[in-house]
């Protein structure tokens, strides 16, 4: 029972111009226009000659794209000269993500990405489909997937699911997290994405200032702009000029960064809504570009809960998830797509335990049997901090001169405080089926992973560890590339470390891992 072959939405042509080689088509046309007026160089002619066939080829690829629903798989065909046929079994499709920027939304289309299970499974990006075609795809793929799963029997995800074979529509799902604009403003305040915005802006500024010659004699653009500004502000402030100006500058910088951060949050996370649909987490967010993805619960590798000092002030936490899985034909497993996504950018702390028990069924955050690290950890942390307190001012003394002494004192005090408080906040827990690790005094983090997601366990001893007969245990998981908090448990008594590693490896052995 094959369906008819479907084509891309007609507007795909428009979007093809915006991506990849299509990007060269418009500038190429502009160059040709310039050529008419006689203002062109040799190289521009060559580039326009070379680009046009390339652009035409990629346009043809979009024009010849077609897909078809077969009983067990989706078949995608593309290409006129070089034919490509891709078969994607429905049961391998774990996620149909849509990305819609303003143009997509105006025209009622979406950029669709099919994400698949790990291994050498193909995936596909379809640009663009109309929203009704997207709905049809979702309906067909997920109902087939559910039927196949029901036929094959329950999988090892660990909870009873309410799959309805042959259901036409997706169930509505329960909303877990919904962020209002006020929540987003708070998030922006806490998170400090302003740095990202400023870095991007600085990059653009540097580029443009090189173009227009707006640099000082060392080629450093911002000073030409900032120094007069600084001078003027020093004049404006009464009294002791420079110090006040520096302080005001810092406060101003802080404020500007936080405002930018709130803007970033507003644009990227507007309307953030996380819901549980069957056994998938469905996440929608974005103001101009709307992104809709779904994360099957069993693809969650590690859940990371973060609590900055500002979070504690507001009584909130941030929950992120590390997922992995999905790859393309020909890629090695090192390039397997891994991502860190927000489950809850800002969540009231009292709701955390309930939230986690939904995301990781079987986890009871409040009842975790936390075990502390070895008490000698505080001595070791103190030593480490003292060395840092001695060396860092020494290294910087050329630049900051006598300011090195207060710096040294500050580092000394902070090091002592850290050695007192950090070991109290460090702990690990190994309840049935999970491993958890928490650390951090002011910036607190908790990482939780299922035993079935443990890939390997390592016990490591540095020469310093050996002096104290201590060791550290590292739990390796998939997709932890840019993790903020890897499960690395230091400062354990050596025998305990070996026991813990053996226990965790044993649990990993006893469980099945699937992407």
């Amino acid at each position, binding site marked *: 029972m094959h369906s008819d072959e479907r084509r891309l939405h007609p507007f795909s042509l428009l979007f093809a111009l915006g991506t990849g080689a299509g990007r060269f088509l418009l500038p190429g046309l502009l160059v040709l226009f310039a050529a008419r007026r006689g203002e062109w160089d040799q190289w521009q002619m060559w580039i326009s000659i070379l680009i046009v066939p390339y652009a035409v080829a990629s346009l043809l690829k979009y024009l010849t794209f077609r897909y078809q629903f077969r009983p067990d798989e989706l078949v995608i065909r593309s290409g006129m000269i070089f034919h490509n046929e891709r078969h994607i079994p429905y049961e391998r499709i774990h996620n149909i993500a849509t990305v819609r920027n303003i143009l997509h939304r105006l025209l009622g289309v979406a950029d669709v990405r099919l994400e698949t299970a790990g291994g050498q499974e193909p995936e596909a990006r379809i640009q663009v489909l109309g929203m009704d075609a997207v709905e049809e795809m979702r309906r067909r793929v997920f109902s087939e997937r559910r039927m196949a799963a029901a036929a094959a029997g329950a999988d090892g995800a660990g909870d009873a699911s309410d799959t309805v074979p042959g259901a036409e529509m997706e169930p509505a799902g329960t909303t877990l997290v919904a962020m209002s604009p006020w929540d987003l403003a708070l998030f922006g305040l806490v998170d400090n994405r302003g740095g990202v915005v400023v870095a991007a802006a600085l990059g653009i500024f540097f580029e443009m200032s090189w173009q227009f010659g707006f640099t000082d004699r060392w080629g450093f653009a911002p000073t030409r702009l900032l120094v007069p500004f600084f001078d003027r502000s020093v004049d404006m402030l009464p009294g002791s000029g420079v110090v006040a100006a520096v302080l005001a500058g810092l406060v101003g910088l802080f404020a500007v960064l936080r405002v930018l951060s709130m803007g970033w949050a507003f644009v990227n996370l507007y309307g953030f809504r996380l819901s549980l649909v069957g056994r998938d987490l469905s996440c929608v967010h974005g103001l101009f570009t709307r992104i809709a993805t779904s994360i099957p619960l069993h693809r969650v590798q590690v859940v990371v809960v973060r609590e900055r000092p500002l979070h504690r002030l507001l009584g909130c936490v941030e929950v992120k998830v590390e997922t992995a899985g999905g790859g393309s034909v020909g890629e090695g*497993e090192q390039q397997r797509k891994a991502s860190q996504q927000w489950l809850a950018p800002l969540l009231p702390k009292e709701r955390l335990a309930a939230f986690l028990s939904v995301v990781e069924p079987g986890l009871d955050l409040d009842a975790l049997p936390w075990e502390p690290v070895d008490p000698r950890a505080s001595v070791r942390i103190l030593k480490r901090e003292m060395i840092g307190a001695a060396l860092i001012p020494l290294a910087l003394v050329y630049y900051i001169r006598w300011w090195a002494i207060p710096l040294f004192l500050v580092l000394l005090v902070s090091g002592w405080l850290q050695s007192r408080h950090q070991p109290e906040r460090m702990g690990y827990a190994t309840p049935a089926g999970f491993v958890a690790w928490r650390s951090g005094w002011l910036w607190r983090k908790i990482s939780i992973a299922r035993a079935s997601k443990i*890939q390997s*366990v390592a016990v490591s001893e540095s020469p310093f560890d050996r002096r104290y007969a201590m060791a550290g245990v590292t739990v*390796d998981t998939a997709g932890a590339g840019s*993790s903020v908090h890897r499960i690395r448990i230091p400062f354990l008594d050596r025998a305990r470390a070996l026991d813990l*590693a053996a226990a965790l490896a044993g649990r990993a*052995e006893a469980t099945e891992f699937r992407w």
Partner: protein
Amino acid sequence: METNSTGLPAAPPGPESEPVPAAPPVLAGPRLPVADSVADGVERPVDPRAILLNRMVTAIVAASILSGELFALLIVAVSARPPLWVLGLASAGWLATLGLFLWLVVVWPTLHHRHQAYRVGAGRIEIRSGVFWRRIVSVPRSRIQHIDVAQGPIQRHLGLAKLILHTAGTDNAQVELDGLAHETALRIRDHLVSGGPDDAL
């Protein structure tokens, strides 16, 4: 906690304590008996010829670096005619590099070999390595995505091989064990690959 002489705890009784069945006779080629000799949970060092391998590789690297340095030194001495103290300093540097490589060729391989061991149990493999920064990595059998047995030219000449375990992890996406005898590496691979009912893939 009972430990054997190498410091690793005695192999805990695994979830399956019955002996691992021999691999099914599907593949062509001689299949050596797997279970008893390899997966017995006993920790053993890698092949002693690994020391020779290490020495040979380091010697080759040392020879090329040292000769390059000497060549550069001679060219500078002849063409630029620097003062004597600069020549003395440069020669001292070259001698220091020579000393370092001598240590790396003579002392380091035995030291490294002494701290390298592996243990294959019923459901996992543990690899111990490192002299100053020591590590013991445990990889459950069900988490191994695939296994490579690799041989460079010197390893082929000495009859050694390197076992590379690929996992889905990030830091330990690849776990390597170098200096195994070739047949041992093949046997370990066959044992780890031949699946039980709890295999993931």
